[in-house]
């Protein structure tokens, strides 16, 4: 049935008739106008800035409008080391963004703490508190890597279906759009991770590595 429809669509387009579905149109519009938040944390932010400038030109992907308010942003690029002192603010900014919203963890630090992993004030990956859509390795990643991550995100948005059990979080009433903001504890952040977000894969349990 689906294949027939696809064939019909191709056949029609060959004859100059363009057809689409609401879902395709909706996702096409969303993926080509992702507005990132003006938000940088460390050296990765410099690469992020370079990505938006003329040489790499993120505007080609419809993401040139960096918004200085989380209320107007769709995407938060966590670009740099997240210190424990900064982590609650990152989560709060993410909470203040309207759905649908996406997260790119840019660079080794945002993924895992990176070279500063053993630091007393370094969060070992922002995925402990907020759901990350695309991880980019690198220290810092080149602008091409950020563009690749951005295209990966566009692909992800394009593949989201608006109905059915596989529909994304922002279309499900039972899913949260805000996540608990960690508090400053006596020895570190409390809780140290949000277990609803920071989950291990099956057969790959979370454990303390000595």
């Amino acid at each position, binding site marked *: 049935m689906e294949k027939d429809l696809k064939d019909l669509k191709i056949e029609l387009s060959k004859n100059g008739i363009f057809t689409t579905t609401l879902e395709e149109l909706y996702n096409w519009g969303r993926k080509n106008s992702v507005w990132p938040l003006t938000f940088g944390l460390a050296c990765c932010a410099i690469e992020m800035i370079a990505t938006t400038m003329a040489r790499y030109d993120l505007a080609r992907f419809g993401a040139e409008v960096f918004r200085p308010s989380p209320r107007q942003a769709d995407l938060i690029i966590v670009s740099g080391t997240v210190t424990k*002192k900064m982590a609650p603010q990152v989560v709060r900014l993410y909470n203040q963004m309207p759905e649908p919203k996406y997260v790119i963890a840019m660079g080794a630090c945002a993924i895992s703490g990176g070279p500063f992993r053993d630091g007393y*004030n370094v969060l070992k990956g922002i995925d402990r508190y907020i759901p990350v859509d695309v991880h980019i390795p690198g220290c810092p990643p080149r602008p091409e890597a950020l563009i690749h991550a951005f295209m990966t995100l566009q692909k992800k948005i394009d593949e989201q279906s608006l109905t059915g059990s596989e529909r994304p979080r922002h279309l499900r009433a039972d899913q949260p759009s805000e996540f608990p903001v960690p508090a*400053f504890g006596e020895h570190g952040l409390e809780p140290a991770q949000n277990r609803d977000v920071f989950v291990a*894969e099956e057969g790959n349990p979370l454990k303390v590595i000595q």
Partner: protein
Amino acid sequence: MTALPPVEDIKAQIEAGIPGAVVTVVPNGSPSGQHSLLLDHEHARAVAIFLRDHAELRLDFCSLMTGVDWLDTEASEKVKVKKMVAAADGTEQEQEVEEVRKTKHPGYLEAVYHLFSMEKKHGPVILRMRTANRTDGTHLPSLTPVWRSAEFQEREAFDLYGILFDGHPDLRRILMWDGFVDFPMRRDYVPPADDILVTEAHR
């Protein structure tokens, strides 16, 4: 530009200028040979003002202040002592026996100041102060009233090492949050176990 006199001369000038001040030269064996002056708590502030206002030294700029943590150390040495030892046949005989003697040196926290002169264009003169121990006697006199540039760095030394600077105008944590209780740059600091909770993929 005037050449800085050797630290021994500076020490002599301080002791002549401030009666009762106890200044010790801490030698530095490295090629740079930057020997430093260890000050006593009681006269540290007076010595600082003396160095700042001295006509030839004019050390008007404190470029750096940092903390150092020295753990408790235990030195063991083998000593030969004469002792009465019971022999195999039951009688006691005097014998020379080797004994290991252990001496404990309590650790301390140290504050280091690097001083320069903007006016005379010379430096650095390095000052040190040491706390009584690492637990309850971690007070040192603050030199912020003498060199304002030490303010944030003394706060940092308080935040990360737990040195309490008496006379500091605003001694609060500067990098960590106020509710934090540990001193993370101390060498015996242990980070919370939750920190190293990872999935296999993150190793």
